C-alpha cells in the first residue's frame, strides 16, 4: 500500500500543524529563506490535503521529497551532523513526518519530537524572550497531546488553558531541578563553535578610522557589576589588545611574542585598593577578556592567563556569552622588563613624518617624564578637536598632517600620534586598545562598542608601564562623560547613544537591565555558581548526602503541596455520600470488567451488571434501588442501608 488514508480528526491536526510551525520557526530564521520555505512546505501541504480530504501523498513522492530535503541540507552545510546541519536535518525530517502521519499514535510521536525541536531552539538564542516563546510552543504542543487523547476529535480553547496550567504547575519542579540538580562544569558534549563567523568589536590592529567605525555600533560589548564601591568613570579602562608595531599606516600586535611559550607577565605591584567585579562578555570570537586595567595575577579566572603585555587572555575564543569574576588594581608599578621587550616599543618605520620627529627631538634633553608631559601639553594647547568627522589622511606623513594641519581626530589618531612622538623622543611607548567608561544602569555598567577606545602606555624606569591617555588631553570629557557628550560630529553615533531623548534611553536601560539580570542569573548559572549556592545550603560537593536530602525534601514538599491542593479542591466538590458509595460499588464491579459508561444511568448499569453476574443479581438490584432512593428520591434513610450493603458487597 503506497497511499495512506487520512483518518485523523481535523481540528487537532490543524492545531498540530500550527504548533509544529511555531516549533520550527526559530530554526527557520537560521536558514536561507528558500531553504526554510522548502522545509515548511510539507506543513501547508498536509493542511491542504486534510482540508480537501485527499489521501496522503504516495510513497515515492514522500521518499523523493525527503531525499531532496536531506540533499539540500548536505549541500548547504556539507554535513548532516554538527550543530547547524543536524538541526536543519531534524527540522526537515520532522516536517516530512507530518506527511505520513495518519494515526493518533504517529501524531503523538510528532508532538514529542516537536518538544525536542523547541528545546533545540535555545541553540538559536538563549535570550529570555526565547524562553517565553518556547513556553508558548510547549503549551501549544501539550494542548495537541491532550487533544489526541480526546475521543471526540475536538480541540478547543480549554485544552490550551489546561496546558498552560500544567506548565505553571510544573514550574516549581523545574526551578528546583534548575537550581539543585548537579551541573557538570564542562559541557556534556563539545559544541562545535562557529568561529568562522565575523567577529564584532576590537581587532588586533588599528588603522585611522577603525574606532570611528566602532563608535557607530551601539551593541553591547560586555556588562560589569562591581562588588563594593564603584570606581570613578575616568578610571574605567577596559584593557584589550596591546599594539606595538607601527608600519606607517596602522598599528599591529606583536602576536608571535605573546603566543610564545614561557611568555610571562611582568611582576606587578599594586598601589591602590583592589577592585572586585564580575563581567559578562558578549561573544566576540576572540580570546581576549577585557579586564579592567590591570588585573591582579593570582586572582585570574580558571583557563586564562596574563600575557607579558598585561592583557588577560583566555585559552579559548569567547564564542558564547561568558561570565567571569575578576580583581584589578587601578594604579600599579611593574618590574623592569627585559631589554629586548623595551626595544620593541621604540620601533618606528624608516622615514616619514619628519615634522613630528623634529618636534620629538626638541624634547630630547628633558627627562622621560617631562617628555611625556611636554607631548601631552602640546596636544592640550594646540586646539586639537576630538571628532567623529576626522578627515581621511593619506600618504606617508599622516601623523604630521594630524599634528600640524588638520588637528582633528578620534581616539585612534591621538593615541597613535602620541606613541609615535614618544618613540621618536626615545621613550618606550605602545598603543593599548579596549573600552573606556560605560553606562551605569541601576547597579551595573553597560559597555558598548561605542565605548571602544585607544590610549597609550609609556615605560618609565621608576614605575614601569604607565597609562597615558592623550585623548583626555584633547577632550577631557571623553573619559569622564563618554563619547556622546565630548565628540564632535556625534550625529554619526547611533541615535540612542546620543542621549537626545531621555525617555527612550531610560526605556532602553530598563530593557538592558532585564537582559542583564537574565544573563546573570539564568544563563550564567553554572557549576561554579551552583556550588556557591549549594555551599550556602551546607552542601560541599555533589556527592554530599545533604544534596539528596534537599532535592528529595523539596520534591516531597511539592508533591505534598499538590496533594493538599488536590484534596482541598476535590473536597469543595466532594460528592454526596450516596454518590461516593455508588462509585465504590462501581469500582467493585470493575473487577469483573463491568464499567459504567459515562452516559449510562445507574438503573441501566445495574440491570446490565445483574445480567452479567446472576449470582449477585439480588444484591446489585437492591443496591441500585437504595442508591436511586437516596440520590434521586432524597430519602436519607436509604443511605444507611446503602452504606451497609455496599461495604458488604464483595463480588
Amino acid at each position, binding site marked *: 500500500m503506497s497511499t495512506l488514508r487520512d483518518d485523523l480528526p481535523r481540528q487537532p491536526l490543524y492545531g498540530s500543524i500550527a504548533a509544529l510551525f511555531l516549533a520550527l520557526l526559530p530554526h527557520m530564521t537560521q536558514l536561507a529563506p528558500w531553504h526554510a520555505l522548502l522545509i515548511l512546505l510539507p506543513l501547508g501541504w498536509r493542511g491542504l490535503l486534510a482540508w480537501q480530504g485527499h489521501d496522503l501523498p504516495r510513497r515515492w513522492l514522500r521518499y523523493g521529497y525527503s531525499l531532496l530535503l536531506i540533499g539540500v541540507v548536505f549541500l548547504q552545510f556539507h554535513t548532516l551532523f554538527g550543530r547547524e546541519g543536524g538541526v536543519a536535518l531534524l527540522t526537515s525530517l520532522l516536517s516530512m513526518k507530518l506527511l505520513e502521519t495518519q494515526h493518533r499514535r504517529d501524531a503523538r510521536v510528532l508532538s514529542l519530537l516537536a518538544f525536542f525541536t523547541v528545546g533545540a531552539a535555545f541553540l538559536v538564542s538563549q535570550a529570555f524572550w526565547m524562553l517565553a516563546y518556547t513556553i508558548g510552543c510547549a503549551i501549544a504542543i501539550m494542548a495537541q497531546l491532550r487533544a489526541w487523547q480526546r475521543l471526540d476529535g475536538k480541540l478547543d480553547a480549554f485544552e490550551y488553558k489546561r496546558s498552560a496550567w500544567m506548565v505553571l504547575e510544573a514550574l516549581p519542579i523545574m526551578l528546583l531541578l534548575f537550581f539543585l540538580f548537579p551541573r557538570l562544569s564542562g559541557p556534556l558534549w563539545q559544541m562545535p563553535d562557529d568561529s568562522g563567523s565575523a567577529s564584532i568589536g576590537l581587532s588586533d590592529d588599528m588603522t585611522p578610522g577603525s574606532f570611528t567605525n566602532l563608535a557607530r555600533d551601539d551593541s553591547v560589548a560586555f556588562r560589569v557589576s562591581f562588588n563594593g564601591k564603584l570606581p570613578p568613570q575616568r578610571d574605567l579602562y577596559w584593557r584589550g589588545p596591546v599594539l606595538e608595531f607601527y608600519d606607517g599606516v596602522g598599528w599591529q600586535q606583536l602576536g608571535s611574542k605573546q603566543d610564545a611559550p614561557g611568555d610571562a607577565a611582568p611582576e606587578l605591584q599594586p598601589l591602590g585598593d583592589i577592585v572586585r567585579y564580575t563581567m559578562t562578555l558578549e561573544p566576540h570570537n576572540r580570546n581576549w577578556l577585557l579586564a579592567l586595567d590591570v588585573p591582579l595575577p593570582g586572582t585570574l579566572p580558571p583557563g586564562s592567563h596574563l600575557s607579558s603585555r598585561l592583557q588577560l587572555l583566555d585559552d579559548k575564543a569567547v564564542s558564547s556569552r561568558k561570565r567571569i569574576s575578576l580583581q584589578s588594581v587601578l594604579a600599579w608599578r611593574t618590574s623592569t622588563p627585559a631589554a629586548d621587550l623595551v626595544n620593541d616599543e621604540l620601533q618606528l618605520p624608516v622615514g616619514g613624518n619628519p615634522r613630528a620627529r623634529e618636534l620629538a627631538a626638541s624634547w630630547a634633553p628633558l627627562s622621560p617624564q617631562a617628555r611625556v608631559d611636554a607631548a601631552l601639553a602640546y596636544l592640550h594647547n594646540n586646539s586639537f578637536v576630538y571628532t567623529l568627522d576626522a578627515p581621511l589622511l593619506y600618504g606617508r606623513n599622516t601623523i604630521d598632517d594630524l599634528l600640524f594641519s588638520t588637528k582633528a581626530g578620534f581616539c585612534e589618531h591621538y593615541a597613535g600620534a602620541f606613541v609615535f612622538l614618544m618613540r621618536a623622543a626615545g621613550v618606550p611607548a605602545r598603543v593599548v586598545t579596549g573600552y573606556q567608561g560605560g553606562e551605569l544602569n541601576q547597579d551595573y555598567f553597560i559597555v558598548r562598542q561605542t565605548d571602544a577606545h585607544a590610549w597609550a602606555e609609556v615605560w618609565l624606569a621608576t614605575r614601569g608601564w604607565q597609562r597615558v591617555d592623550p585623548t583626555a588631553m584633547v577632550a577631557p570629557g571623553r573619559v569622564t562623560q563618554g563619547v556622546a557628550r565630548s565628540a564632535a560630529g556625534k550625529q554619526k553615533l547611533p541615535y540612542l547613544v546620543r542621549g537626545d531623548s531621555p525617555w527612550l534611553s531610560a526605556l532602553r536601560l530598563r530593557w538592558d537591565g532585564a537582559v542583564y539580570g537574565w544573563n546573570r542569573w539564568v544563563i550564567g548559572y553554572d557549576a561554579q555558581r551552583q556550588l556557591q549556592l549549594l555551599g550556602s545550603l551546607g552542601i560541599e560537593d555533589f556527592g554530599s548526602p545533604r544534596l539528596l536530602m534537599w532535592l528529595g525534601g523539596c520534591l516531597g514538599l511539592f508533591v505534598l503541596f499538590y496533594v493538599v491542593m488536590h484534596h482541598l479542591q476535590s473536597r469543595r466538590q466532594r460528592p454526596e455520600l450516596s454518590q461516593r458509595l455508588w462509585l465504590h460499588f462501581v469500582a467493585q464491579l470493575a473487577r469483573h470488567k463491568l464499567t459504567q459508561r*459515562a452516559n449510562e444511568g445507574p438503573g441501566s448499569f445495574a440491570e446490565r451488571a445483574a445480567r452479567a453476574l446472576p449470582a449477585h443479581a439480588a444484591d446489585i438490584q437492591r443496591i441500585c434501588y437504595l442508591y436511586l432512593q437516596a*440520590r*434521586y428520591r432524597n430519602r436519607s434513610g436509604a443511605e444507611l442501608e446503602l452504606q451497609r450493603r455496599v461495604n458488604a458487597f464483595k463480588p
Partner: protein
Amino acid sequence: MAHPLSSTLQQLNRIILGKETQIKLALACLLARGHLLLEDLPGVGKTTLAHALAVCLGLRFQRVQFTSDLLPADLLGVSIYERDSGKFRFHHGPVFAQVLLGDEINRAPPKTQSALLEAMEERQVTVDGATHALPEPFFVIATQNPQHQIGTFPLPESQLDRFLMRIELGYPSASAERAMLTGQDRRDLIATLDATIQPDVLLAAQKSVAALHVSPALLDYVQALASATRSHPDFAYGLSPRALLGLVNAARAWAWLDNRDFVVPEDVQAVFPGVAGHRLPTRASGRPDPRSAAELLGSVAVP
C-alpha cells in the same frame, strides 16, 4: 401497583402494533400537559395513533385536516351576524375541543399555523377582542409529513417549541406488520374502542405527575444536558428554558408511567430525543435532526 393508565396503554398497543415506546412517549407527553407532534411518512399510522389516543382517554376530539387554503377562522371560529337577535354571535371552531387532531399540520400556510400559537400556549382563543377559554384538558396532537415532501410549509421555530415532543413512528417490525396485515382493519378497531378512563382521572394523573419528586442530582444532569446543547458546535443554538421545563415534566410523566414517585436519569434519557430532537437545529442543515440529539445524549455524563 399499576397506575390507572395501564389499561389505556394496553388498549393502544392493541391498535398500533409494535410501537410500545412511541405510545408510552405519546402518553407521557399528554400527562405532562404538552402537545404532541407526530412526524413521519404518510401511512405509518400517525392519524390512527392520534385518533386512538383521543378515544381511549375518553376526550371530546375534533379533527382538522390542514390544507394549504385553510384559514385561521376555519380553525378558531367566526362571529356571525344573527338577524333574529341583531347581534354577532361567536361560532366556536374545531379548536374548542379537548383533543384537537391537526392532520398534516405542515400543509397549512404559516398564517394558519400561527393561529394555533395562542391556543397551544395560553389555552385560550382571542377572536374579535373577546377571549374564549379552551376546555380542560386541552391537547393538540398534530401530525406532519417530513419537510422534504411536496406541498409542505416548515413549522416556525416558535411553534415547534410549543410542541412538548415530536415522535417518529417509523416502519413497524416485520412481525408487527404481519399481525396488522392479518388482523382487522384498524379503523374498525378504533370504532370498537371504549374510553378506559374518565377525564377527571386524567386530570388527577396530570396533577400527580406535576408533583413528582425531582432531586437536585437529577437537575444537575438536566442542566448538564442543556449546557451541552448550548456549547455544542454542531447546533445553531441550544435548548430554551421552556424546553428544559418540558424535559423535566416529560421525565416526570415517564417515571409516573413506570410506577415510580421519583425521577431517575434514565427517565430523562428516555424522553430527551423526543423533547429536544425538534428544538436543536444543526448548523449544517439549519433543520432539526433528532439523531444528533440522541448522539448528544451519549456524550454527556450522568453526574
